[in-house]
């Protein structure tokens, strides 16, 4: 379980960003979490509360948007969002591809505060 390490990195990044933007209190954090990020959502949520203790983020809500896998199919020359992460292949022509455009991110993209 590396979600606690990830949670500490997330909190550190959020605190730095909040300070840079002169936020006194953070109410919510929005995180993009790819299905191929290697991070378990529930474990991260659990770790988040521990990692925020004693910081200006303490008590903030963690909102996780799960990002499905988006691939590029070299045969159709099109992008597709996959309903399930595996198999990693084109839903139209079934060709396998290693061109993954989205779905690996662990990205903090929004802070809500005042």
């Amino acid at each position, binding site marked *: *379980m590396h979600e606690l390490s990830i949670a500490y990195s997330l909190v550190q990044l959020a605190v730095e960003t909040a300070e840079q933007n002169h936020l006194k209190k953070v109410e919510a954090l929005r995180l993009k979490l790819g299905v191929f990020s*290697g991070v378990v959502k529930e474990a991260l949520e659990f770790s988040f509360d521990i990692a925020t203790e004693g910081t200006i983020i303490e008590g903030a809500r963690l909102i996780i948007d799960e990002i499905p896998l988006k691939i590029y199919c070299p045969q159709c020359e099109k992008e597709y969002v996959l309903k399930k992460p595996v198999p990693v292949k084109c839903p139209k022509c079934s060709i396998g591809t*290693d061109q993954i455009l989205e779905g690996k991110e662990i990205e*903090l993209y*929004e802070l809500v*505060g005042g």
Partner: protein
Amino acid sequence: MSQAIEQPRIVKIRENVLKKNDILARELRKRFQEQQVYVVNIVSSPGSGKTTLLTEVLARLSQKFNVAALVGDLATENDAHRLEQSGAKVKQITTGTVCHLEAQMIEDSIKNWDLNQLDFLFIENVGNLVCPSSYDLGENLRVVLFSTTEGEDKPEKYPTIVNSADIAILTKIDLLEAVDFNKESFYQSIYQSRPNMKVFEVSAKKDIGINQWMDFLIEEKMKAFKKMEV
């Protein structure tokens, strides 16, 4: 007391949570590139044969090249002692409770090393098929190991690590029949998350496939740095 008169403010950011690790990994990769050190990060579950394979490869490669290894474990220096038998430079990273290696640990471990003297650096990650997938260590090649004794469908259970790896190695191939291992289902299971992935079949005990993998590494090193004196 305080009434929320002000509207909550939204601050837009787009930052990778593992930014610090990624920046450090990029710096490491640049240093390795400049010093022409080819770096291989090996990941697998515990007991799939990383150390056995690596001992063999280190011993053979060190006849021609300067080779070193970093080995990550939660506790004990047993793996480092086993690897040292190969004659290569070996350093243990004991992570305590951390289930993966991070770029910072690599940087700390090679602090006093003269990278210029090195051709290959192998990093044996902590035995774990989940956590190491999120951490870039500045490597050229990420290798995921599976053993015949683990069953055919292991890759399917851990799609993220398979997808994050560049090549796969199937170890203990000499036990194929003994454990009734179905190679075809194994390959299907790999291709689910990484179509057409290159797979080497090896046995360190019976000397099968080791040289093929080594030749591949030497070739990849040459490709990575274009010029090299052999």
